[in-house]
């Protein structure tokens, strides 16, 4: 551990939180139809989108109409991407003649990118043409991110509604978020990345003769443009197998900083935008505070673990403690890799700049636990906000039970109906994670893909399903997932993790929107102070802990004790 390491971790988190205020204010304006400095350029494009699609953008939708439109858009995206991947071999921009994906791999990949997961059962550099990367994956990187972000507007409008106003128009929100926020942000970031060394070319490979006379084939492509939206949209799917550890995706400590800030700042900004639209800025600040506290703690624990002792290194090099650099890059070192791991799993991004599988049991275990907490620290773009709102509803509900009052949050009574939907949403995750993991742990067909034995192997399985259900997309990558069992079950898990959470949230929004807005009284639980932040953190930890502790005890926790034993030898 070094002071520079601690400073890097602290500054990275601080920067991503600080950016959330201007970005959040801008996002709120985009949702509310306010003027932006991009209007002269983008208004005509926006109008063209509505006209071609035959949409009356001023028509507000109910929660069912909005959800229907959202699902239809995602279904169309799924079929298009599935189709592109299947017939890749017949499409242009494919100089290396990569074949089309098998049905199960195309199914898995299409769901993966539509649900903002970006789990990858393939290696980009040896399976995907530039055509598929651009027309297939980049499009869904934008579409899935925008799909998540629009839900922020819906939930915010539901809390802001006085009695039954509409929840907005899906097509309008979708178009505006993409045009005014995601696209300009991506352009700026892509240019910054190229300046730092990320390639942006249509050439797919260059042959080199090394100094010692060997042949080397350098794989490249339009990487910067994909990398930008990959982080901004908390997608996380790498151009290459090595993802953000690849020097072409992430060549310097500066690109690494940009990547980390990009994958967290919009998640925080969604909370700020929510607070502005609802008129609950202080409450939004409390939510951000809870996120930052948990995220910082996680980053600190991972950094501590990754700079501690590893038996293989201690025994061979006779040094302890030494940074665990297996599966890490020299230019990042332990600190930048640890905070990256916390931010990518706190955020449902899933990009990695070091392999979580080679982390210490504690480091890898915390990354896994952050996914299992529901990825709300600050979570994926949009999904983090509605995730933390569900947690806030539980918090006021539990507090309400303690004092015997009907709970309310931001001026809306929280009744049995909302809590039932919230329960439904949070129970889907463990059901699929533990259900499929339990089967995979005993099924020979599934175990063929698992690379490690013992507790580490179980962690590999648990991580895969947690990552899929949480729409994270990172992996304990020793797992060979491109097989019918893994592709199919992980595909189903990703779809459920996204839509079986999102739809109940939309239902909650629909129910809240028609309730009258209450003015706070002396008996109302304040939701903007330290007490509430503590309560919220407690609820998040207890809920995540209760659901997953027994499974974790058989994986990373027992492996941690095995490691201590090996160190003592």
């Amino acid at each position, binding site marked *: 551990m070094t002071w520079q390491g601690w400073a*890097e971790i602290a500054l990275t988190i601080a920067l991503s939180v600080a950016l959330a205020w201007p970005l959040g204010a801008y996002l709120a304006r985009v949702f509310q139809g306010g003027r932006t400095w991009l209007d002269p350029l983008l208004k005509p494009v926006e109008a063209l989108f509505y006209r071609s*699609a*035959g949409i009356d953008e001023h028509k507000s939708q109910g929660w069912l109409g909005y959800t229907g*439109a959202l*699902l*239809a858009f995602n*279904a*169309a995206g799924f079929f298009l991407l599935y189709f592109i991947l299947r017939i890749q071999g017949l499409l242009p921009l494919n100089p290396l003649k990569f074949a089309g994906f098998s049905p199960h791999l195309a199914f898995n990949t299409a769901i993966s990118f539509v649900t903002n997961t970006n789990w990858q059962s393939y290696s980009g*550099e*040896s399976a995907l043409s530039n055509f598929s990367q651009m*027309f297939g994956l*980049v*499009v869904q990187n*934008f*579409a899935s991110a925008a799909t998540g972000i629009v839900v922020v507007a819906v939930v915010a409008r539901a809390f802001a509604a006085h009695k039954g106003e509409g929840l907005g128009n899906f097509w309008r929100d979708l178009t505006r978020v*993409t045009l005014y926020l995601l*696209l300009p942000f991506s*352009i700026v970031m*892509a*240019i910054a990345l190229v*300046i730092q060394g*990320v*390639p*942006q*070319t249509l050439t797919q490979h260059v042959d*080199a*003769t*090394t100094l*010692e006379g060997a042949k*080397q084939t*350098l794989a*490249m492509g339009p990487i910067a*443009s*994909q990398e930008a939206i990959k982080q901004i949209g908390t997608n996380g799917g790498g151009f290459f*197998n*090595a993802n953000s550890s690849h*020097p072409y995706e992430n*060549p*310097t400590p500066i690109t*690494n*900083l940009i990547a980390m800030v990009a994958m967290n700042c919009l998640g925080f900004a969604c909370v700020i935008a929510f607070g502005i639209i609802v008129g609950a800025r202080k409450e939004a600040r409390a939510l951000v505070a809870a996120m930052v506290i948990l995220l910082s703690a996680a980053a600190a624990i991972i950094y501590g673990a990754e700079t501690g002792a590893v038996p*293989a*290194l201690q*025994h*061979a090099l006779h*040094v302890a403690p030494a940074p665990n*650099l*297996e*599966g*890490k890059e*020299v230019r*990042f*070192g332990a600190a*930048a890799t640890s905070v990256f791991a916390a931010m990518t799993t706190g955020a449902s991004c899933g990009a*990695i700049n070091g392999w979580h*599988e*080679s982390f210490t049991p504690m480091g890898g275990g915390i990354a896994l636990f952050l996914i299992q907490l529901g990825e709300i620290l600050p979570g994926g773009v949009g999904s983090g906000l509605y995730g933390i709102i569900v947690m806030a509803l539980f918090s006021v509900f539990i507090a309400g039970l303690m004092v015997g009052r009907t709970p309310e949050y931001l001026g809306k009574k929280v009744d049995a109906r909302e809590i039932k939907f919230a329960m439904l949403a949070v129970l889907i995750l463990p059901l699929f994670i533990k259900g499929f993991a339990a089967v995979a742990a005993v099924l020979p067909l599934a175990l063929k893909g698992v690379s490690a034995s013992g507790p*580490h192997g179980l962690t590999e399985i648990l991580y895969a399903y947690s990552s899929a259900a949480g729409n994270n997309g990172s992996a304990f*990558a020793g797992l060979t997932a491109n097989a019918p069992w893994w592709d199919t079950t992980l595909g189903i898990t990703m779809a459920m993790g996204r839509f079986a959470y999102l739809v109940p949230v939309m239902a909650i929004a629909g129910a809240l929107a028609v309730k009258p807005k209450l003015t706070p009284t002396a008996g109302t639980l304040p939701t903007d102070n330290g007490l509430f932040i503590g309560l919220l953190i407690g609820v998040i930890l207890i809920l995540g802990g209760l659901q997953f502790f027994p499974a974790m005890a058989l994986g990373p926790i027992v492996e941690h004790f095995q*490691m201590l034993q090996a160190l003592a030898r």
Partner: protein
Amino acid sequence: MLTHLRPAIVMIALFTLLTGLLYPLAMTGFAQVLLSGPANGSLLRDGAGHVMGSALIAQDFAKPQYLHPRPSAAGNGYDPTASGGSNYGPLDPKLAQRIAGDAATLSKEAPGYRIPVDAVTASASGLDPDISPENARLQAPRIAAARKSTVPDVQTVLDRLTKGRALLIFGEPRVNVLEANLALDQAAPARK
């Protein structure tokens, strides 16, 4: 649901056009015109214009007069068409075995030196272009002997190419192996 059909199809088509075609192409055009070095992969060429590799991508070096990169698990080693790490868990016996083997070789090569961690651990990408300054220092005696040069002379070249942390805080100090080897060839040509 049917009322959503037309907007869904038209919208995904427009998204494809805008974000899948126009956006990457515009970025490519911009980068190719204004930033052609990095945009084309930071390639290094010899006097005749042949590509010798990329400043960002590790290549294998085994000869004694060259700085050696970190162990690589990309394909059969340093293969940019198969990037990746070992994905060994911390308690995997294969990891302990590999580290012990590499450490034994290194301590024979440079007796008395403390072996830095990055010299015996596989990088994440398998293409890590850098090594730590300590790792470079460890290799200086071998390089000096092979080049009939002196350790301080070699070390001077390595020190010149050592990059510090960005803004004093971000990342770690490092030496780019390919750049250092090109500089070494220039400063003290090895006898063939």
